[in-house]
């Protein structure tokens, strides 16, 4: 009897068996994550019950019981003893007002153009792969606001004589300083170029802007009190966001400056604006400010709110950015200085790119806070999205038990879309820019 009969030598590999069904797929995932132990199983069960309690009535209200079309409140009135569902017909009837406020219907195309331009410029600016970033930024930050201003208000602003005097003075001051530097300070033309370009250039730009907004393009004037809804929310939020970031960076640098006056001014500014609630700022700007201005001078309520909101969020932004600056090791500064970089190149090339990247979550946090704070303008008589929705509750044509809930639900959805969008974009940016910090 040969031994070879007893031993078998396998010449080929056994086929790979799939993993046991209990560890793969949905079942495996659930076993691992939801039912891995008795206590986990109990927690899962409780979680499911809570989720059901919360989600089921919501779906019932928002979809199953909802009324999707109708002419007036009759459509949304529940039958006896039945819980009222969402009255989406009311949102449909009021939709234009929620988006444009009381902007004249014939002029709504102007708002639409602004919305479209905004999207067209913002998307390529936000997408890292899109080309022509610099041109795009100039268009978005420089040209778009002026164009939007003219489109929304109608332009044809009467620029007072004193404004032109101010612009001329600005240019003259530049020339005068340059002159003094040349003839008293003994600098040559190249040496005074920055001053000359700074003053005269800004005078020319200001003059051009004033000239542009004073031109009559034949657009009907639309006063800001009739603006409302999402339009006001976006105008305030976008202006606040765009203006507060550079201002905040400047304040943060100012607060870390070794120059005592700049440092002091920055600290006072930041602490003052952080020390008062936004609601007070808005109240002051709309009620008190007119008392301080010379008689006969009033300026637009929306503009006052814009300035208040911007300064307020700039103070918060400054502290966020300062946090980022503090996280940069001293070696980075010393290294930059050793390379012979002066202050601004050092900040622009070495410090800020690192610092800002670190505080993206904080910056976006401030942006989202600002976006939601725009709802406070209601107290100074302006109608942002939420205010517009609330004011629509008073229309007896649509007054039903569920109108209020539907309106607030709609507001929540719109705000969520914007805030969640910002949040996702910030996470995307963080992941894209992580270099050595991400775990």
């Amino acid at each position, binding site marked *: 009897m040969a031994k070879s009969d007893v031993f078998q030598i396998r010449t080929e590999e056994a086929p790979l068996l799939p993993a046991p069904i209990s560890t793969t797929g949905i079942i495996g995932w659930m076993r691992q994550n939801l039912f891995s132990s008795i206590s986990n199983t109990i927690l899962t069960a409780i979680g499911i019950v809570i989720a059901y309690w919360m989600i089921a009535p919501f779906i019932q209200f928002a979809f199953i019981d909802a009324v999707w079309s109708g002419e*007036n*409140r009759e459509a949304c009135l*529940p039958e*006896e*003893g039945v*819980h*009222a569902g969402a009255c989406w017909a009311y949102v449909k*009837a*009021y939709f*234009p*007002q929620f988006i444009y*406020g*009381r*902007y004249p*219907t014939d002029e709504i195309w102007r708002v639409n153009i602004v919305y479209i331009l905004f999207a067209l410029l913002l998307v390529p600016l936000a997408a890292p792969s899109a080309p022509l970033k610099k041109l795009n930024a100039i268009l978005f930050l420089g040209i778009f606001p002026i164009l939007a201003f003219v489109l929304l*208000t109608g332009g044809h*602003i*009467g*620029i*007072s004589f*004193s*404004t032109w005097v*101010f612009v001329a003075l600005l240019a003259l001051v530049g020339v005068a300083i340059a002159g003094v530097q040349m003839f008293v300070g003994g600098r040559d033309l190249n040496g005074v170029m920055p001053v000359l370009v700074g003053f005269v250039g800004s005078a020319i730009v200001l003059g051009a802007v*004033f000239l542009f*907004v004073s031109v009559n393009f034949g657009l009907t*004037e639309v006063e*800001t*009190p*009739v603006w409302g809804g999402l339009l006001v929310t976006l105008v305030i939020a976008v202006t606040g966001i765009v203006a507060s970031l550079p201002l905040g960076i400047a304040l943060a640098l100012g607060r870390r400056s070794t120059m005592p006056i700049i440092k002091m001014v920055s600290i006072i500014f930041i602490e003052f604006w952080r020390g008062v609630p936004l609601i007070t700022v808005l109240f002051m700007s709309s009620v008190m400010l007119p008392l301080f*201005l*010379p008689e*006969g*001078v*009033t*300026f*637009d309520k*929306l*503009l006052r709110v814009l300035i208040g909101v911007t300064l307020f969020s700039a103070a918060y932004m400054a502290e966020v950015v300062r946090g980022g600056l503090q996280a940069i090791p001293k070696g980075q500064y010393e290294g930059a200085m050793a390379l012979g970089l002066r202050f601004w190149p050092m900040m622009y090339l070495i410090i800020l790119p690192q610092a800002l990247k670190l505080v993206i979550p904080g910056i976006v946090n401030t942006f989202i806070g600002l976006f939601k704070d725009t709802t406070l303008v209601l107290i100074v*008589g302006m109608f942002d999205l939420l205010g517009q929705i*609330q*004011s*629509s*509750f*008073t*229309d*007896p*044509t*649509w*007054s*039903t*038990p569920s*109108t*209020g809930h539907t309106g607030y639900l709609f507001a929540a959805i719109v705000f969520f879309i914007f805030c969640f969008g910002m949040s996702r974009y910030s996470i995307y940016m963080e992941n894209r820019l992580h270099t050595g910090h991400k775990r």
Partner: protein
Amino acid sequence: MSNKILPLVLGAAMGAAATAAGATTLEDVKAKGHIQCGVSQGLPGFSNPDAQGNWTGLDVDVCRAMAAAVFGDASAVKYTPLSAKERFTALQSGEVDVLSRNTTWTMSRDTQLGLNFAGVNYYDGQGFMVRKDLGVTSALELSGASVCTNTGTTTELNVADYFRANNMPYEIVAFEKADEVVAAYDAGRCDVYTTDASGLYAQRLKLTNPGDHTVLAEIISKEPLGPVVRQGDDEWFNIAKWTLNAMINAEELGVTSANVDEMKSSDNPSIKRLLGVEGAFGEAIGIGNDWAYNIIKNVGNYEEAFNANVGPDTPLGISRGVNALWSNGGFLYAPPVR
């Protein structure tokens, strides 16, 4: 210097205009081509924006009627929504030309604030709403009831006075905002909901089953609501006063927006005077003689305004009650045009 220039620049940039001082309100209004009307931030049926963004309501119609009287065009009005706190300052400072914002005519307001009430366009008063199945028919049966109301308003004080005067125990359940009060009442947290009667009708629409609730007949406070103008400008005061009177007189004389053209050839001397066919009553108050014709043609008489905004056929469903003409047992009584 520079701190004065900045506001100037900004002011100019936003197209702000200095208000011309010294001119009378009527001259101002004629110069700018519209009436600036102070309204509420939204009170159903009285002044509320509709789905098209237009302001509608009984109070709004007063402003529209004034615009019709001055310009012959009821749409020559711009509206400023005002909170209860801002309203008088806005009128005093000239931000608005007329305040038509469910404002109660009281002695202190009339005499101490530099304001004049041009009349009453709605007699309101605090009332009670209860569930029908409670079986209550009179407010005097509300002993021991829990009462839902807004905090810190005269409403709360009126309730206290009323229940104390009638020796009835009660319990106040107060909330900051009207919506919360309605929700609490709807949820059964209290038996009674009290606020101004006009408000009760408006809030009833928000209840789950509006038909299950009824507004009791008792009114426990006097709230005559009317348009207000600045004191010291009698010309404008007259226009406000007689705009309202014209609407009431038109109802009494049976002149409506539909028949006003035929009524011009009526033989009734009162109608002739009202519509400017006879006499020069409009010129006497600084506007055209067809002032009342324009009001009625563009806005309608008081009955039309009432029925279109708050009347029985609207969701609010308020009956005329004390707001009927004096000849129908109500309070409305306008001096004659002659």
